């Protein structure tokens, strides 16, 4: 009896179950980030000047480099999936490893950003010398939400690096491509979230 026949009648049925489970998981993840986005919308409408000041003071170049890194990683994983579908496993593995490397680079840049903030006296909760020098109403809210949103996102990137890295090591065969698809869907979702965090905290 194969592993697939333990719980499912066929591999196709199993693939369907995996996709549905991932859909529900991504919906719940959407709700998590929605809660943070709602806070950003509410506080930003209340303190527009403080948020504009916060955005202006943020590490725009590093945040933008991270955007390019994530977009590159998503593209490489999408191409890797197509390579796997057409039987080019070696190229697919290389591209998947490259995606994981991009994830590590993203986290390294994010840590560099945090170090820069801490050096300036910017800590979550409005603590630090920066807030003494700039006693602007709403500024602590901006930076607290920034750390909250990017921190949560960073944890998701870290999990994604683990999942993508594992997938590169254990590349599925032709009948198990839905496993790779599930990993790719999660990684693209993490990319999607960043596409909205970037403009909200770095650009405008």
């Amino acid at each position, binding site marked *: 009896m194969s592993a697939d026949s333990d719980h499912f009648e066929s591999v196709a049925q199993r693939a369907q179950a995996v996709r549905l489970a991932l859909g529900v998981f991504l919906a719940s993840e959407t709700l998590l980030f929605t809660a943070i986005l709602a806070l950003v919308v509410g506080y930003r409408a209340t303190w527009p000047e403080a948020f504009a000041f916060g955005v202006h003071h943020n590490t725009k170049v590093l945040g933008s480099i991270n955007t390019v890194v994530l977009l590159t990683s998503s593209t490489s994983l999408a191409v890797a999936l*197509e390579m796997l579908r057409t039987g080019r496993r070696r190229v697919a593995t290389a591209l998947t490893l490259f995606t994981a490397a991009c994830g590590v680079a993203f986290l390294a840049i994010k840590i560099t950003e945090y170090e820069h903030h801490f050096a300036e006296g910017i800590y979550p909760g409005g603590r630090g010398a920066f807030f003494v020098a700039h006693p602007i109403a709403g500024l602590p809210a901006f930076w607290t939400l920034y750390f909250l949103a990017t921190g949560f996102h960073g944890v998701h990137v870290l999990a994604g690096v683990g999942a993508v890295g594992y997938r590169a090591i254990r590349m599925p065969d032709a009948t198990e491509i839905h496993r790779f698809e599930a990993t790719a869907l999660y990684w693209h979702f993490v990319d999607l979230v960043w596409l909205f965090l970037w403009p909200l905290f770095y*650009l405008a």
Partner: protein
Amino acid sequence: MSPIRLRIVVGLLLAVLATASFVASFGHLGSFALTVALSIATIKASLVLVFFMEVGKQSASFKLALAAGVLLLVTMLALVATDVSLRRGPSWANETTSPRRADDSSL
């Protein structure tokens, strides 16, 4: 166009749009800056959803689950926007520091 080439083209398009967002952030767009930035972000997100996540090819159950998430997102943002727009009277927004808790001894 082959699927692989299509994904590479989409990737390049995403890079172009990201560059446009970055350049636009240096323009003096005033209150339109956020609208422009989020509009470009929405276009990029749509490209990722359609070409990378292949939402169009997914099963109806997957689409339903994803739609539920989006519906929750829209509902929550609409409720917050409504709450903020309908607030009246003196607001804690005018305080020089963040809102203090009711049990704050300095009150």
